[in-house]
Each structure stands twice: as C-alpha cells, then as structure tokens.
C-alpha cells in the first residue's frame, strides 16, 4: 500500500507580511502503485509538494496523507531521489546502497542479496567499490535510484531526477525507469520540467499554476497509453512520434505557456 493524498494543502514560507505563499489549496490523490508526474513553471511549488510527502516540510494548512495517515517525519517507506543525487561521497557505491538496509537491521545475508539485485537492476555491478566522484552523472543517479529502490519503499519521490543529466543519458535513464516501473510497480511522485518526460513516464500528469501553486489540471495518460498501445514501442523516440503522444504533449505545453512567459518554455 502506498497512496498519497493532498487535502486542501497550503504552504507559506516565512511569517506575517514577509511570508510567501508557495502553495494554495492543493488537492491531489495518488493511488497505490500509480505513477504521477507534476509539471509546472519553476518556483510554482513542485519541490515543496514532494518535500511535504517526504516529511522534510510541514503543511501550513490542510494535510498530506500517506496511506491515510498524516506525514510527520522522513522515513524509508518514502524513498527520495534527489536532483543533485545527494550520495554520500565518502561511501562506495555498495556502502551508499547498503546504508538504508543496515538501518533496517536486516541480517547480513539478506542485505547482501538485496544489494546485489539492486546493483544488477541498475547495471552497477562493475562499479561496486567506486566512490561517487569517480562516476559519471548518469552512474551517480543510478546509484541514487538503487539506494531508493533497495528499501522496497511504498512510495518513491523523485524531484527532477534527470535534470542534471545530459540529453543522451537522460533518455537512457527514462527508458530504464519505465522498465523498472513495469518490473516492480511503486507509487511514484515524479517532478519534472520536461513535458515529454512526464507524458512518457506517468500514468497521470498534474499541471500546476505559477506561484502560489495550485493544481490546474490533471491529465490521464494511462488511458491513452493503453488505448494506443504505446508499450509496444521499445524506444522512447518511437513513442514520442505517435500522434496520441504529440497531442498530449502539445496540450500540456499550451497549458504551461499560459502560466509562464514564452521564454521559459
């Protein structure tokens, strides 16, 4: 189980007249094992939404629920993949992935098995003993994803996880994430700037207004994906050429362009 609910959530940073309203009456329900992407102009509060589910930030009004219970603190049931990876530079790849399992006090044998399968899943077997600074950005992000996945979390929170990667690496990672999401479905809250990424990955896409952020529109991608059989195409570029894909993408672009100046798109 891993449902997420935003109920009339406001978020204000600061106090009194100096306060900045970042989120305004956010309502969103994400079902168990659903993959929802949030897109919106920068500064609209996407990261803030994710940080509230993670337990790093509290709502100013309303409530954020996971499995029907209010979030109070961070925890391994809600794994986060950060944009800047946030790996521990003094730990090797293995040690980075292992920490969460050690914290769960799993027996060594079981821990080793889980780490081994996470390494295999993310194609990291040849870099087990490397330090993060010895890896490329794409490899570092694989470690970060493995570190999150190995926890077997109910909820996976990803804040522009591919934003720091170059275009080619990004495409590879998107394809891998889809593979991962099919192989082992999780509830995912995924934040991105990139509209195509959102449409390609998500079951639903929520579009936010500019600050103070509200949910403007939620699009059902999954229905279209299944109807048009996107998964029969192995490559991301083939999916992105489909008329149904282009249609959704253009719709979101237009919606976003109303929110931000032309220059930002």
């Amino acid at each position: 189980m891993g449902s997420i609910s935003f109920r009339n959530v406001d978020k204000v940073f600061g106090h009194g007249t100096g306060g900045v309203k970042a989120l305004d009456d956010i309502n969103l329900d994400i079902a168990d094992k659903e993959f929802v992407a949030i897109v919106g102009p920068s500064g609209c509060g996407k990261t803030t939404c994710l940080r509230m589910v993670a337990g790093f930030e509290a709502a100013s009004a309303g409530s954020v629920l996971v499995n029907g219970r209010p979030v109070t603190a961070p925890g391994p049931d809600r794994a986060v993949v950060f944009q800047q990876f946030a790996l521990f530079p003094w730990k090797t790849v293995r040690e980075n992935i292992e920490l969460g399992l050690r914290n769960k006090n799993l027996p060594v044998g079981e821990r080793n098995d889980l780490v081994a399968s996470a390494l295999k899943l993310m194609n990291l077997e040849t870099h087990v003993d490397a330090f993060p600074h010895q890896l490329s950005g794409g490899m570092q992000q694989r470690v970060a994803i493995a570190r999150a996945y190995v926890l077997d979390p109910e909820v996976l929170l990803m804040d522009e996880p591919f934003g720091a990667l170059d275009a080619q690496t990004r495409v590879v990672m998107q394809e891998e994430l889809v593979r991962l999401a099919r192989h082992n479905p999780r509830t995912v809250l995924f934040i991105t700037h990139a509209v195509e990424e959102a449409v390609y990955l998500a079951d639903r896409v929520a579009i936010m207004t500019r600050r103070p952020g509200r949910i403007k529109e939620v699009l059902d991608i999954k229905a279209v994906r299944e109807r048009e059989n996107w998964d029969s195409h192995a490559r991301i570029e083939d999916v992105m050429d489909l008329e149904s894909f282009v249609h959704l993408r253009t719709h979101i672009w237009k919606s976003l362009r109303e929110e931000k100046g032309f220059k930002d798109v």
Partner: protein
Amino acid sequence: MASVASRRTLIGGMTVIGLVVLWFGLTTFTGLVTGARFPSPAEFWLSLKQINGRGYAGSTLASHAFHSLKLVLMGFTVAVLTGVPLGLWMGWNRRVEAFINPVFLIIRPIPPLAWIPLAILWLGLGDAAKILVIWFSAFVPSVINAFTGVRNIDKPILEAARMLGTPRLRMVREVILPASLPMIFTGLRLSLQASWTTLVAAELVGALVGVGFVLNMAQQDIYPGMILVGMVTVGILGWVTTLLLARVERRALAWNVAARD
C-alpha cells in the same frame, strides 16, 4: 602532471641553492654581514657540532627537540580530542552553540600567548604549563573549523540520511563526521601551527629544556650561531609534523575530489 611537479621541485631546489650561495656570499666571502649579526655557515656548523656533542643549555639538540616535539604532540592531541567533538556538537545542536558561543566571543580576542604568564603562575616552568597554553591556542581552530564543517554540510545529504532512517549515533559517525572531515583537517593544520608557535613562545618565556629554551639561552649568551640552530630545528620540526598530518589527511580523505592533488 609529473613534468609540472618535477619542474616545481627543480625551481624549489634552485631557490634553496640560491639562498645558500647568498648566505655564503654575504657572510664568509664578502663579510658584508658580520658574525655578530648573523652567523656564517661555518659558525652555524660549529654551533651544531657543539650542541650535538657537549650539549648546550643543559642537554643535546636531540633531547631538546624531542622534548619540544613531545609537548607539542601532547598539547595538540588534547586540543583536538576536546576541540573537534565540541565543534561538532555546537554545529549540530543550536542550543549548545547558544551556550558556548558567548564564552568564545569573550576569550577569542585574547591572543593565546597572553595566557602564558598565567599558565606559568599556575603550573610553574614545567611541562604542564606548556601543555595548557598549547591547548588554549590549538583548541580554538579545531572547534571553529569542526563547527563550520557541520554547518556547511550539504543539506540534501543530511536529508538523504534521514530519509534512509539513519539512527542518531550512526548519523554522527557515518554522516556528520565524514562530511565535516575536510574542514576538520583544515582546523587541525591551523591547530598544529598554533601549537608550535605557542610552545616556542612559552619556552622562550620560561622553561628548563626545549628548543625555545635553547633560543632563549643563545640570545642571552649573544650566540648567533646557536640561535640559528634553534630556529632551523623548530622549522624542521614544524615542517615534518605538518607533512605527517598532510599524509594522514590524504589517506582519510581519499574519497574527496577537492583533497586530491
């Protein structure tokens, strides 16, 4: 890389040779600088032979040097073992910082050397007074840099550790401590420098043995050759200990990109 490094060594070597030539030139060859002001290489050599043979200021150079080194290492160790944990604690816990910071604000403007008279008054001319002043002077850089190290930890790294459910003790040992380690080592380098400065000053003012005591005696005997021996000895000791610390640092920070080369 290698060629740049070897070129640097070459230039460095030439500078040293140039200085030695200049030394000979100004003293022995031209006599522009008389032995009453600065010793010639020959006078330096004679002083060195004397202190290594018969001894000077009560003992040989080796035992003076060993004594000073021992005090520095003891004072430095005490300062680091107390300063770094305090700095980490202040960095981690804002209430601790609020308590301790005022004490620092009052004590910090007092130069460590100004503690020497009080330390001698309390503890006499022996080792304890020296260790105390070294502690005072080396403590501060250790505390401040450990503190800054904790405060400058990349926030997402702490959040990642919390998200992974890292318990408190493991958080300190495996996240906060290593994340602060580059800054901690900066503090240790400054602490080590401070230790030598303070020790020599303390031995100059009041001691019965040690390199600073040699300097003090040589000054009273108007003995430039021996003064230079004392200075060179302190220089070499400081250099060697710094080098050792740098080696420890390179090992401990092998994971750190910034610390490489």
